[in-house]
């Protein structure tokens, strides 16, 4: 279960049809639940653990965990993007709950909350 979406934090990016996390997944694995408007993971086994969805979520609603066969509960890794978008602070929590932090330079580009899909007539791709 590499990526967990916390339904209490996810707001579906205010009705966006094509929110950033869905767009940034290189494997086409995230989709919108048409009933709740929140994001669902299609198949955890297809996840590459690459984290663009985690980093881009404005609500920090997507959490990254290793699948249990690779790492013990409840170690976690949470990226926090600085408001200046020039730094990212990674919060690393080990199995005992001890926290370590790493702040690294980067250049995060702004991302729109929605984006049009190319095509003649876009059908609803949510489930």
């Amino acid at each position, binding site marked *: *279960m*590499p990526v967990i979406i916390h339904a209490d934090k996810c707001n579906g990016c205010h009705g966006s049809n094509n929110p950033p996390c869905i*767009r*940034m*997944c*290189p*494997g*086409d694995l995230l989709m919108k639940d048409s009933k709740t408007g929140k994001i669902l993971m*299609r198949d*955890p*086994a*297809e*996840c*590459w*653990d*690459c*984290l*663009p969805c985690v*980093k881009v979520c404005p609500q920090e609603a997507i959490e*990254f*965990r*290793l*699948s249990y*066969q*690779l*790492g*013990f509960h409840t*170690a*976690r*890794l949470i*990226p926090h993007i600085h408001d200046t978008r020039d730094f*990212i602070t*990674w919060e*690393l*929590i*080990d*199995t005992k709950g001890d926290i*370590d932090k*790493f702040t*690294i*330079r*980067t*250049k*995060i*580009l702004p*991302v729109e909350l929605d984006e049009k*899909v*190319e*095509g*003649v*007539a*876009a*059908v609803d*791709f949510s489930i």
Partner: protein
Amino acid sequence: MEQNLIETDILIIGGGTAGCLAAVEVRERFPNLSVTIMEKAHIDRSGCLAGGMNAINAYLNPGETPESFVKYVRFDSCGLVREDLVLSMSELFEYCVKKVEKWGLPILCDDKGNYIPRGRWNIKINGESLKPIIAKAAKNAGTKVLNWVVATNYLVVDGRVVGAVGFSVRNGNMFVVKAKATIIATGGAAGVYKPNNAHDAQHKTWYCPYNTGAGYAMGIRAGAEMTSFEMRYIGLRVKDTIAPTGTIALGVGAPQINSKGEKFMATKYAHIGGDGAPTPYRSHGPLQEIKEGRGPVYLDTRHITSQQARDLKSAFLDMYPSMVLYWAANEIDPSKEPVEVQTTEPYIVGGHTQSGYWVDVNRKTTLEGLYAAGDVAGGAPYKFVSGCWAEGVIAAKQAGEYAQKNAFAEIPASLVHKEQDRAFAPLLSFTSKKDGIKAYDMEVRLQKIMEEYAGGAATYYEVNEERLLVARRRLATLPDQFKHIIAEDLHELMKAHEVIDRVYVAQTLVEHMLYRKETRWPGYCTRTDYTERDDEKWLNFVNSRRDPDTGIIEMLTRPYVQIVPGDRYKPR
């Protein structure tokens, strides 16, 4: 089904490392030409660079030249590379790196403003956002981007590639793109063999699991000449996470040791460079240790300080964050215990090894109107990120010139209809039949055949004639099974094409492995029936061409040409 017809001067299939740079280059050199990128995901985070990069691994640090780079790459590839291709890409490293730095990529510099090397050909970067940075440059250059359009085949008229067909994984629209020239830049192929991890970690692979050989397969189906598929890439990676080891080995200087603590590379492979031996030997060496009962094998990091361990973690966060979480989740401190390593599933790539389209120095393929760049292009290993950029630049220049001189072709409607039927068949099969094969089932079948008969990890990647002939026979049945594939939705339709494409790649690969009757790259393709390197007979490229009408794969060789003088088995 909605159909979109798009006309573009240049079509780039695959908006990754090579594709984005190619788009910018076309627009800068030929402002009158229109450019369209067809991309199966979203170019902001698609392909190999989705997670980021922490180094540029092909760069000429002070004192190095294109010639010294060729000597090293030739040594690393056991004496056989396309020197013309390696030379031409290395001449553009500086141009590309400077360009991307200008777009905003943070590159680590010392007090005097010089790049900080990490090994002979590497410089350190903070590349977590490398992909969005180059994607933005491509968009700013005026490129039309078709995100979520999965390319299924070229449009070929009178032997010339005049565009391509794809479908949108978002809305099921079909896209017919007419182009004067086409650049293929879809990357290599993962998932041809059984992955290192199973179940919910099956995609915990080093190579991007969404790179499934589409560009190779389209070329194979259209009769393009392919080279060196038998030089599979089997990398030495960190156990379980399959994270790159260069960050550790080059970052802090960690030798390989076996379970007895012996530095086996330094002792047994001293004559070819010890821990600096050619890359295939750095996988072959530890495999022999494990095979002979001296595993596990580690990178010895016990000498590093706790600050160095922190720096190591920071470097991984820029590229492969799960490595850092893995250490925390398994109570591993790399400064106190060595880092266990393993070898990957075999990948087919043109950027680390040299599997791909046979191209000329302008990156023109053997198909008229088609150019190749990046992992999908063959003959030039050791490309990594900057070499893919360079090839994108070279291909852009040539494709642009071709587009200036040639008009759009007329595309017969029957050609489009035929591909439309093929592309959407799995969806229709589901609606009409319900019963059939899921893409996943065929993927597992393919991986089982390849793993067991075509040199998978379980057999230490070793092959022989008899096993390969079984693989050939089993694979031969799969194309007849394509008609049984069913897809419930568009995501599954994409998966269906991903496995169909990999079957074409696998068939070509098996023919290549059968044909080269020597062991040039131990570890990558060890033949137990031809255990030695044989320069007299096999100092040449093994190429293939599948006849589009009969489906028969014809094998041939192309001569190796030495351009840079010197001993081909020495790194300098």
